[in-house]
């Protein structure tokens, strides 16, 4: 059977030249990887219609890589879905389409713009952040495709509400998370049964930190969108964040656009995701930068978390990722 794991969608899984670990010891990244693979297989086996959520960011890039580890030489037992706010970085869309094509998997794109055009959600205007609006599009897509499990790349170290969330997180028929009524989740017994209309969110990267993600990207040689590495970009400083000047972000009164050397720590809606000043052009340099950082990932880059003390919890209660 050794010849069976052949080159799959451009990823060399050659049995003779692969990493081919023969060691009997298991390090920290091996355990995280193994556990994530275990979770994906459980979710795929226990749910009727799972889907993997893919934004093109680093966490979902790791998720796709882990899905290949879990299910090759077979195809993925789920499609890949992107919730598209319409406020994208070109580099990320290009990366998304290429990665999914390389893997030979099916991509579903659910567009916030379609939800606006259909009158499902009010039009906030062309330049407003659509981060929160994604929730309506996501819930509509879940219901249209009858998905009962959404595998996402959220990590517990990102936010104090996420720190509280189970690996399998239950959502009611309205897509809501109720933090006071989470299911007990003991050992590795992930129990994912839901009733019709309800669904699960599954987070295989729950125990990974930002640093773990980068160390794993380094070890596995996972390709990421170029905006994660230092590049020259025209930005405007707003509320202490560097926003890329684009068709949706123009300098306002008193603001000036300047060209800076920056990179992104997270990838989201372009109108609310900030860049950080950085000279890191390699994964190793990014790892050094992340290890020394005194500001959290979302604190540095996400305007959407600054609305209130419990912004993430409030969004999750509405059905957000």
């Amino acid at each position, binding site marked *: 059977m050794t010849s069976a794991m052949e080159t799959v969608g451009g990823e060399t*899984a050659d049995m003779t030249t692969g990493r081919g*670990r023969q060691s009997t010891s*298991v390090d920290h990244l*091996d355990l995280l990887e193994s556990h994530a693979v275990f979770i994906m297989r459980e979710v795929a086996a226990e749910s009727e219609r799972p889907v993997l959520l893919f934004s093109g960011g680093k966490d979902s890039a790791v998720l796709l890589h882990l899905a290949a580890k879990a299910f090759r030489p077979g195809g993925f037992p789920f499609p890949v879905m992107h919730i598209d706010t319409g406020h994208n970085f070109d580099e990320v869309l290009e990366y998304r389409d290429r990665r999914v094509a390389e893997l030979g998997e099916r991509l579903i794109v659910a567009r916030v713009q379609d939800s606006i055009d259909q009158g499902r959600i009010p039009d906030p205007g062309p330049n407003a952040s659509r981060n929160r609006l994604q929730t309506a599009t996501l819930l509509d897509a879940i219901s249209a495709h009858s998905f009962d499990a959404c595998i996402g790349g959220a990590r517990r*170290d990102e936010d104090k*509400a996420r720190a509280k969330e*189970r690996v399998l997180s239950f959502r009611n028929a309205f897509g809501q998370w109720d*933090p006071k009524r989470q299911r007990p989740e003991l050992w590795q017994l992930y129990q994912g049964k839901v009733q019709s209309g309800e669904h699960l969110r599954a987070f295989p990267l*729950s125990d990974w930190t930002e640093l773990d993600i980068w160390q794993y990207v380094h070890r596995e040689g996972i390709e990421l969108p170029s905006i994660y590495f230092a590049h020259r970009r025209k930005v405007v400083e707003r509320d202490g964040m560097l926003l890329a000047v684009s068709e949706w972000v123009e300098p306002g009164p008193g603001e000036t656009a300047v060209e800076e050397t920056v990179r992104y720590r997270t990838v989201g809606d372009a109108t609310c995701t900030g860049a950080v000043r950085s000279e890191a052009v390699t994964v190793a340099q990014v790892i050094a930068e992340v290890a020394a950082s005194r500001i959290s990932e979302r604190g540095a880059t996400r305007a959407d978390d600054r609305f209130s003390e419990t912004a993430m919890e*409030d969004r999750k209660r509405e059905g957000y990722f």
Partner: protein
Amino acid sequence: MDLLRFAAVGSVDDGKSTLIGRLLFDTRQLFDDQIEAVAAASERRGVGEVDLAFVTDGLRAEREQGITIDVAYRYAATPRRKFIIADCPGHVQYTRNMATGASTADLALVVVDATAGLREQTRRHSCIAALLGVDQFIVCANKMDLVGWDRGAYDKVSEEIDVLARRLGVASTTVIPTSALHGDYLVESSEAASWYRGPTVLEALESAPAGRWAAVHGSHQGTAARLPVQWVLRHPGGGRSYAGMVNGGPLRRGDRVVVLPEGRASTVSTIETFDGQLEEAPVGLSVSVHLADDLDVSRGDLIASADDPPDVSTRFEATVCWFGERSLHGGDRLQIKHTTRVTPVRVDDVHARLDVNELHLVPVEELRDNDIGTVTLSTATPLATDPYRRDRITGSFVLVEETTHATVAAGMVGRPELTDVEDPPAG
């Protein structure tokens, strides 16, 4: 670098979240923006100085009430090792969440209010942690500043913990006098308790054996290799491999195995991951295996070493932590999830409840919410089980309500082992 997973447990208001917040702050694990956010939230809620409990109490309802509702997971690293911390709720209503946090821990950090001694809920948490196989306790005799660092208060906590630990088979206990509020003996030693010569909390956490959960499930005798089948991988050109995570002991190419519950024998012909083939798969690794014989193997089956296979039975005795809102009675029908198999289960008998204060089993007819007790279960299909003391994976299960799919119990195969303990020496 190794990894220690620990759970902070104990009664409500004894200072767990404050202690974890302080530990993270003093070891510089908090980002500047997180510290600013905690300070702002403390000011907004008028709780005076920076309330470090807000580091982990991140939910709106938690901050309103000043309590912990659900487990918060935090990730920390010192030059010595990495930590995954589960800050568990103390309130009796949220015992299920405490059990969730403790089920994957190598060590329990038991926080006790030294002005009050061990409360019932401290005892309940200690019992659950010990039954879950957590056999190392670091005990913080906390709020020592409120009793003027009186040695008598510390000694009382030590004696009570000692009896409980010996009765429940906890191998190692370290009792440390602390003030979470002021940080004494957390990261830095202190002059406050001139009579205390032991380690700080951080020193104790850094020197405790790590990886018990990940490496050797159940730190007791251990078993030979087991592989619960999660998923069947079909290979182009024919052939199937069986995917799952290795537990019990390492699985080697050429091992003689049995496929349970049916019991057909075969040999492991190859072990592989996406990255290549392995001669030996250590415990905790997700792999897929090919067998030499063409057998019917599907999800829910267990591939086990033929040398030391688990018991196969439709009837077994177990210890359960009951989390249902209704009571559990003999005759009740539920679903059981054991490894990767889900099957209907009937409760034949409820035998006894563990009295967490007196630490003995009391005969009862029913188990109420948050009770720990012993039952006999019958399953619709046979299960391949090991006693929980030997294997945390093949010895554990959850019970699920058939209609709501709510998880209502955590179960461990076998009865609790309670050691006879003589009265503690006086003084």
